[in-house]
């Protein structure tokens, strides 16, 4: 990935209210953030609201990025997830059912033609999907509900009628397995987490 300006410089310029820098940041993260938000809220309009709120917070400094906390990508994902969880809790967007685009049956997911400046991470995404695919149905269910569904372990326990201890052990086992595969895949594809 080539970066004209590094993330830190971009955030500094946004801090001094440079709209061009905001646009650059937007272009860089739009697709990744939108896809993640969509995965969580499962609704195009709601996902756009999440993106809107994220960039508003970036612009108004309502959420401050501190380099010491790690990569900007990580910070952006964390804020995005928090916004999406708030939204999922506020209104049940899943029930609204407003399809924005009429996709065809059996449509294949977009292969993702990002520009060089987009945070594309296509291979990382594929790698992650591959890693998730090794999980059992039960493991997938807990990871899905907690991470993408924003549920707590207690909520998962009630929703799927599983004892709390089982939720805990499934999460532990799932992450352990994923970690194992991440390091295997990482060695194969030269990923450095």
């Amino acid at each position, binding site marked *: 990935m080539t970066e004209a300006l590094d993330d830190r410089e971009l955030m500094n310029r946004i801090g001094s*209210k440079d*709209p061009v820098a*905001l*646009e650059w940041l*937007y272009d860089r993260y*739009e*697709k*990744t953030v*939108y*896809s*993640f938000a*969509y*995965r969580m809220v499962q*609704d195009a309009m709601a*996902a*756009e609201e999440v*993106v*809107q709120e994220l*960039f*508003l*917070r970036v*612009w*108004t400094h*309502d959420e401050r990025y501190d380099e010491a906390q790690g*990569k900007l990508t*990580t910070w952006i*994902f964390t804020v*995005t*997830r928090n916004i999406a969880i708030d939204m999922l809790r506020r209104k049940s967007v899943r029930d609204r*059912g407003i*399809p*924005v685009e009429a*996709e065809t*049956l*059996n*449509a294949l*997911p*977009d292969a*993702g033609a990002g520009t060089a400046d987009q945070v594309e*991470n296509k291979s*990382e*995404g594929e790698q*992650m*999907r591959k890693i*998730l695919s090794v999980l059992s149905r039960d493991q*997938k269910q807990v*990871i899905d509900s*907690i*991470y993408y569904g924003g549920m*707590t*372990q*207690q909520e998962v326990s009630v929703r799927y009628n599983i004892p709390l201890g089982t939720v*805990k052990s499934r*999460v*532990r086992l799932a*992450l*352990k397995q*994923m*970690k194992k595969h991440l390091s295997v895949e990482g060695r194969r594809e030269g990923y450095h*987490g």
Partner: protein
Amino acid sequence: MDKMEEELCQLAELYALGGLNETDLQQFEAHLEGCAACREQVKELRKLTDILPLAAVQVPPPAGMKSRVLGKILAGREAGGESGNPAPTPKTINGPEPEPEFISAGTRNPVPAPPPKLSGTPAKHSNKRLRYVSVVLAAAAASLTIYAAALQRDVGALRQELAESSEQVSGLQAQLALAGAPSQELKVNEAVQLGPAAEDIIARGLATIVIDAKGTHLLVQAEKLPKLSGSEAFQVWLIKGDVKKSAGTFLASEGTGAMYYTFDPQGYDTVAITQEPDSRGEQPRGRLILAAPIEG
């Protein structure tokens, strides 16, 4: 390490994944301060959870999203006026409180810092400075007017939403009153056989549309359905041309499943069942299993 602490160590994975409630979270974070092993583990786990968002299938953003998102943010900035330095950021609907440094520029303290290029004593340049201040004040007043107008529009839109919501509530109350009552005069409007969508599918099913005082209902039954794995589910769709509306999902028991859906007849032409990766999709993503033409 006592038992309590040991139990807290077991929460590292849930913590990294974001699955702890407020109480557990506070307890675990307090524990984390004193437990080097957990800190190390969380750090390792974060390498994994940090890239989980990338596993989301890439979805193209809706057309025009960029201009809407950036437009709203930057319009907020301009509505507040460009007078001060730094530019004031007005409070937007749902937005955060403006920061104190910004408030001072526009409202509380109308005298801005002197322009950087001014030199000499303030007295010498008092006229120039006064002119500058009045220009800034005029700009601030103008932008506040624009901002107020924008707020009024927002209030108008919110009022309309409120009126629409109350209408919906009375509609829902009427439906609720009916829901408790037993079905009366249930009439079968249409029943169609659902045919396999591909040669290797042996599934078959029946879609029945029935009408009673409560509305129009779709009943779908199917058997010999393919085996589901993972979080997969079957999903029923009502289709009109290119538009597909989810009628709900169901799981099968030994290949047999059924579901029930109440809907507004909209001239749907097809009913279809797909095998989906999970039960949360709003548009079909999986394989088409059964379909039949209807007149719903």
